[in-house]
């Protein structure tokens, strides 16, 4: 089976948000990845939920590209009708890690955004409860999943 559904989804996104989309590609059957400018995240998210029916949130994560001085926040979404996974990505600068919270679009991102804040230090503006989820209450050690937080077994750690 070809990738017609995936290609149609990419066409619909590109035709509605030409200048906000930095990258959009079909990685393989049933996997789409789009990178969106941070100031248009909210509109793209609403479009994905209402018009393209991406209604199920799998998770929210981030990647620390320390050499390029940026974070990349990734939302993993699933369409329950088409059964396609879409990765909604956005790049933010490492020294100003702010991004709008999408909790008003999908309320299921609640715990996942909290965990990403705790592990990376990325502030989700608009989240009602950015408090500790997994680490102990009196944790003072920094942000564990950043690349400059070294474990005892890493080189230089």
């Amino acid at each position: 089976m070809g990738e017609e559904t995936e290609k149609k989804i990419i066409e619909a996104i590109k035709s509605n948000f030409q200048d906000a989309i930095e990258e959009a590609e079909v990685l393989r059957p049933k996997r789409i990845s789009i990178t969106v400018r941070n100031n248009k995240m909210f509109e793209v998210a609403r479009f994905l939920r209402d018009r393209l029916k991406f209604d199920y949130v799998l998770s929210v994560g981030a990647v620390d590209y320390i050499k390029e001085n940026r974070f990349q926040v990734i939302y993993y979404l699933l369409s329950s009708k088409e059964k396609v996974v879409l990765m909604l990505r956005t790049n933010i600068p490492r020294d100003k890690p702010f991004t709008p919270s999408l909790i008003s679009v999908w309320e299921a991102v609640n715990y996942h955004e909290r965990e990403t804040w705790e592990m990376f230090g990325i502030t989700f503006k608009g989240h009602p409860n950015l408090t500790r989820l997994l680490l102990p209450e009196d944790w003072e050690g920094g942000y564990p999943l950043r690349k400059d937080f070294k474990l005892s077994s890493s080189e230089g750690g």
Partner: protein
Amino acid sequence: MTKKNQTRRLIVWDVFNQVYKKIIGWGRKYSLWPAHFITGCCCPEFMQVAGPRYDMERFGILPLPSIRQADVLVIIGVLTRKMASRVKMLWEQMAEPKYAMAIGACPIDKGPFYDSYSVVRADEIIPVDVYVPGCPPRPEAMIQGFMILQKKVEEGV
């Protein structure tokens, strides 16, 4: 009191003491009650020890809901910083005589998570009497751990 009577009294008291200690030791070692408490992933193997094939209740080991009436604090599986403060609180609530066991490779020396940022060793928190290594330890190993503890209980009366 004549000297002969005094010596006789001392001998009777000594014999009585020895028999008394033996009975108390027998009673204590066959009723070691741990509290319902698990910390990590070795717990399914502990459930199998409680099950019909390996039946730990024939040794008198019966899990108990309340920590105040428990004799043994069994640390089963990985111990993290957040749980460690609760373990200290539980240990201080227990009444004397009390014992502690560390089951699994993780509470002994962090196991496969040796370089994790949030795992601690059990004997940094409470004084441990018996260590049972394995990942997870076989049910027979856990029962042997309990038998070593029983010998310690009997001799320590």
